[in-house]
């Protein structure tokens, strides 16, 4: 599911823009953006092993916790701030999202949809916390601290007066148009601060 999502993001991001990827992992998305869109890429990542991979790809990266890694940046420092598959793994997603909205002009958010029908079926019929392709972890060794659905995120944006500029939902066989909160495994959004 990851690659189609990266393709969507690469389609959105403008040529030669500046991009900060929060929780950039091994730098795969940033290197795609550097190659296809010639962006000025910076990553922040907490895993040391992932840092080595980023450096090997020629990415500028900071080995830091993103929960305090943004306080060095002035307002609107980046054209895009990316939070892909990061959101659910951090202690305080609300605070990080707020900081991201401060330092970035546009924010790209992507996460696995916990309300995906297969996950629902597992809870309903098996009575167990779901394990799916995009949430492939058992309860005892999951990096995920928060679980959210597409509707949860849309609700949050409404309450916080965050504008959803674009959204794409991806399921098993490509983009999902109908009932994304039920049929999409991943939701990707471009959001901005409402002035």
């Amino acid at each position, binding site marked *: 599911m990851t690659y189609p999502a990266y393709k969507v993001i690469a389609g959105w991001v403008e040529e030669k823009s500046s991009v900060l990827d929060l929780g950039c992992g091994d730098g795969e998305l940033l290197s795609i953006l550097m190659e296809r869109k010639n962006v000025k890429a910076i990553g922040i990542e907490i895993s040391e092993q992932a840092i080595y991979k980023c450096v090997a790809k020629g990415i500028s990266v900071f080995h830091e916790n993103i929960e305090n890694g943004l*306080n060095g940046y002035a307002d609107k420092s980046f054209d895009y701030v990316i939070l892909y598959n990061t959101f659910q793994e951090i202690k305080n997603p609300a605070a990080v999202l707020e900081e991201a909205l401060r330092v970035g002009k546009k924010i790209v958010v992507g996460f696995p949809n916990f309300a995906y029908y297969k996950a629902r079926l597992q809870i309903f019929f098996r009575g167990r916390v779901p394990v799916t392709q995009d949430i492939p972890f058992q309860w005892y060794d999951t990096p995920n601290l928060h679980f959210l659905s597409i509707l949860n995120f849309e609700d949050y944006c409404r309450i916080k007066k965050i504008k959803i500029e674009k959204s794409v939902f991806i399921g098993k066989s490509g983009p999902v148009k109908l009932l994304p909160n039920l049929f999409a495994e991943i939701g990707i959004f471009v959001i901005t601060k409402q002035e």
Partner: protein
Amino acid sequence: MEKNSVGLVEIKYFNFDELVLDSKEHLKPVTIAYETYGQLNEKKSNAILIEHALTGDAHAAGYHKDEEKPGWWDTMIGPGKAFDTEKYFVVCSNVLGGCKGSTGPSSINPKTGKPYGLDFPIITVADMVRAQKHLIDYLGIKKLLTVVGGSMGGMQALQWLVSNPTNVASAIPIATTVKHSPQQIAFSEVGRQAVMSDPDWRDGNYYGASFPVRGLSVARMIGHITYMSDSSMAEKFGRRSKEKKPVFKFEPSFEVEGYLKYRGDSFVKRFDANSYLYITKALDLFDLAGEKKLHQVFAGNRAKLLILSFKSDWLYPSYQSKEIVKACKLAGVDATYCEIFSTYGHDAFLLEVEEETHLIKHFLERVSDRRESL
């Protein structure tokens, strides 16, 4: 000799007439001892300046004739190594104030015909860099591909960025800081007091008469404690003792005591006590931004930075490197930061070869590429 060594090397000396110091004093003449490895390319764009730490010297790699031990960063410099001498031209010089060939307090004062002693002027990290700039100019290098060093070497690398911003394409400050904390100054001062309270120090005029062996070796012992970590010491020595039963005497019996004694004893054979005072003072005086904010002194700098720190380093803790990182972000300076996991403490910058090699190799490739395309 191993296959990927730079082989036999020789120290060289560069002399120039005069250096005006931060203290406004004029030091003349000045000698800088240096070594080079690899070949300078035609465009003179592949030069790397290696900066040594407190007690290092110009002999960073390869072997001197009739010596068994290679240079102090031989693990990182040589064919195929992090600083690949088949690609890069590597320069390392002994700092101003040192005692390994560069002008320092043990050099002859032309006014008196005797060693300077305490008549040697107080020098700063910026003065060390000023002297190196003369050497780099002499070598015909307009822009260094990178300036790199750990600890005090990192301070010099940072100082290069600020003193000569257009003459460096990148810098790699490792396990360092933009200014000493009170704790770091405190350790320096205890070391200096150990030297100065030794009667054999004779207010610095010991040359030809005596040597403050006890004072300088105690200073070195303290230094070594701060270069290691609690866990690296526990691993290296434990509570092992050369005696089987507890010894109710003050002779060193624990292995850690023997190690420190050995380190102290061997240090006094190779290092000048006054140089130790002058250089540690330069470290304490170092304050890269001074009255300004750090991001202000970095503003507009086009060099790329690779900033490295080590998890167990409590002498130059990671938070000091993170201050550099934060200033880079605010100033819009292209930087990469990695806190390498290590249990070695401050010594890690000399020991974590594999991790450093990976990071530095790729970083240098990227910096070189950019220069080719410009």
